[in-house]
């Protein structure tokens, strides 16, 4: 008698394992500007949350992109619950600095005096890289199982929508730079602690988001190299975002091209659109192959979503496609 169930119960139940990247505690999502980092970061968050992980998606440099995805709910410097198991925060450097000082100085009068003093405000504004440092400090704090802030929620996973390519490298290098600037003392040891977290391959990882186009592919390969060699962070995934479907065969496209040349009106326009689409889909496949040749990291693809504006449902759609 045939078994009642197939021998693949996980598939039968519609469960696919989460990408191993999400088993880490801290994941930076990075890439060139405009490649869909925020959508991918939120999608990763949704996937982890759906698997039962308490997850927070962090934005830096007050871009509020995630709030756009979540139908313009204001996020701000608070841990806001978006869905079950999924929180979001926009890390403001000034607020992070304030919080840092609050954690360092327990005496209220001392803090108030410091916040009012010219020298403190001057240093906070003028010291280059300090904003990035306190931002990473806050990310570190969120990733602690023993949170430093009062009644801090424990997260299983912290996902960071990191700055775009060029600045992303500088951003992740900030702790090391500060550790070198301050040879001894509290800033030195704290910066070192932050850097230890970044280069901890067991707990911290990165995902690079790329587009299937010439320059984004070149930059992603360069970014991978810099992240590994210069920052020392683990690179776990490259997500090639916005891949067009292959709707037509070469043969079909050739025939449609003839139709696109001769006819007029709707049929001609539709045939032209089909030929363009086919050309794009093909050149994207060539870029995908180039990317795979140029990076060491596993490359996974995400489909182009034919939706006017990407919102929460697009992110959810992508979250089910993450491998």
């Amino acid at each position, binding site marked *: 008698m045939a078994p009642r169930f197939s021998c693949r119960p996980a598939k039968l139940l519609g469960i696919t394992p989460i990408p191993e990247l999400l088993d880490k505690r801290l994941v930076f999502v990075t890439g060139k500007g405009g490649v869909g980092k925020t959508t991918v970061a939120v999608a990763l968050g949704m996937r982890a949350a759906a698997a039962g992980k308490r997850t927070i998606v962090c934005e830096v440099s007050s871009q509020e992109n995630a709030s756009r995805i979540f139908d313009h709910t204001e996020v701000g410097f608070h841990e806001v619950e978006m869905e079950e198991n999924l929180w979001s925060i926009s890390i403001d450097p000034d607020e992070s600095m304030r919080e840092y000082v609050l954690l360092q100085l327990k005496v209220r009068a001392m803090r108030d*005096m410091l916040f009012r003093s010219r*020298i403190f405000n001057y240093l906070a504004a003028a010291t280059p890289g300090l904003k990035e440092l306190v931002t990473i400090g806050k990310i570190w704090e969120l990733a602690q199982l023993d949170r430093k802030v009062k009644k801090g929620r424990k997260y299983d996973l912290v996902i960071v929508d990191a700055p775009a390519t060029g600045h992303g490298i500088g951003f992740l290098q900030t702790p090391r730079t500060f550790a070198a600037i301050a040879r001894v003392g509290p800033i030195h040891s704290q910066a070192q602690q932050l850097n230890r977290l970044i280069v901890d391959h067991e707990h911290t990882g990165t995902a690079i988001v790329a587009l299937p186009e010439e320059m984004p592919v070149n930059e992603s390969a360069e970014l991978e190299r810099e992240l590994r060699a210069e920052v020392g962070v683990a690179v776990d995934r490259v997500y090639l975002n916005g891949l067009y479907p292959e709707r037509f065969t070469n043969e079909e496209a050739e025939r449609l091209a003839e139709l696109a040349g001769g006819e007029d009106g709707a049929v001609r326009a539709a045939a032209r659109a089909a030929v363009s689409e086919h050309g794009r889909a093909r050149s994207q496949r060539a870029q995908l192959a180039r990317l795979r040749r140029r990076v060491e990291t596993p490359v996974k693809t995400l489909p182009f979503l034919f939706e006017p504006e990407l919102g929460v449902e697009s992110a959810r759609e992508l979250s089910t496609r993450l491998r």
Partner: protein
Amino acid sequence: MPSVDEILEGKDICICAGSGGVGKTTTSAAIAAGMAARGLKVCVLTIDPAKRLADSLGLRELGNEASRVDPALFAEHGVEMKGELWAMMLDAKATFDELVARQAPDEESRDRVLNNRIYQQISSALAGSQEYMAMEKLFELHTEGRFDLLVLDTPPTRDALDFLDAPRRLTQFIEGRSLRVFMKPTGLAARVAGRGATVALGVLKRIVGFDLLADLAEFFNAFSGMVDGFQARAKRVNSLLADRHTCFLVVCGPQGEPVDEAVYFHRKLVEAKLPFGGVVVNKVHYPAERLRGDGGDLGAALAGKLGGPPFEEIGAAEREDLARRVAENFADYQALAERDARNIERLARELRTKGTIRVPYLDEDVHDLGGLAEIDRYLFASSEEREALAAGRA
């Protein structure tokens, strides 16, 4: 809306600004190449740390010095270079070093800064130091007067705003000399700084560490002889940005987010009284105008056409399936075209501009000189020509 060459008539600086991934680097390169092809001596510079410009121009390496792009490369793509195209990628550290060397009253002061450990770290490694120096290079090139036009590619919007803010931040940064007074709060200095500052410093030492604070003081102090020079320069940079010969072009994509960013950036430009020149929207899906409203059964029409040559040998079921896929693809494309039209309309309304320069979503990526020549047709065409080109493509 005029074309790029009309907007840039009589301008000697063109600053391209916008959010990430909207094709700003490509647009900057195409504008520079187009103006050079039309007879000007143009230099395009990027402060973007990513090496995109080099990619666009087919150059292997860009240094802090302008290098000329070989006109033969353009000739290969059928473009006659009447002027000259030069390109430069900003090296923030080298620019900072040059600036210090120029501003230092003597060699000793110069070396004190250049050899300072904190200076060495911040001038090369830390995020954000590029912006401090970008304006400086632009100003320097402009002062030298070697070029008819400078085209500047900036980092994404939020950073581009930092970049506008750079001269002020630079001045503030230099004013750190006051820290020296705080560091040695004795005698006259103590009276100047006041008791509050002394206590604040004590608290600060506790959380930052004395050594680092002393190093910072030394760092800021090293700049002390250069304050006046820096301030004067920052002032001149500011007036250069606001000059009527300077022009800001906002570059964006047709999706909601880049349009929001473009509107935001335009508002900031207006608030800062900086000269806004126009907006370029890249990767636009043009709608097939004539099809609007016909909405008839495209699938049926297609299936009919697909019955004739060159499709006779395909079976009926296959034909129907192909017709369905063609119609589906077209509907997807049209939806994107309608979205783009809506967003561009909103952009024009918010920016109170009659039109926008729209560059279509081309079948091929734009990443080389051939691609630049292709978008040149849209950037430099008159409004009517652009519409005609677009209609031909749709």
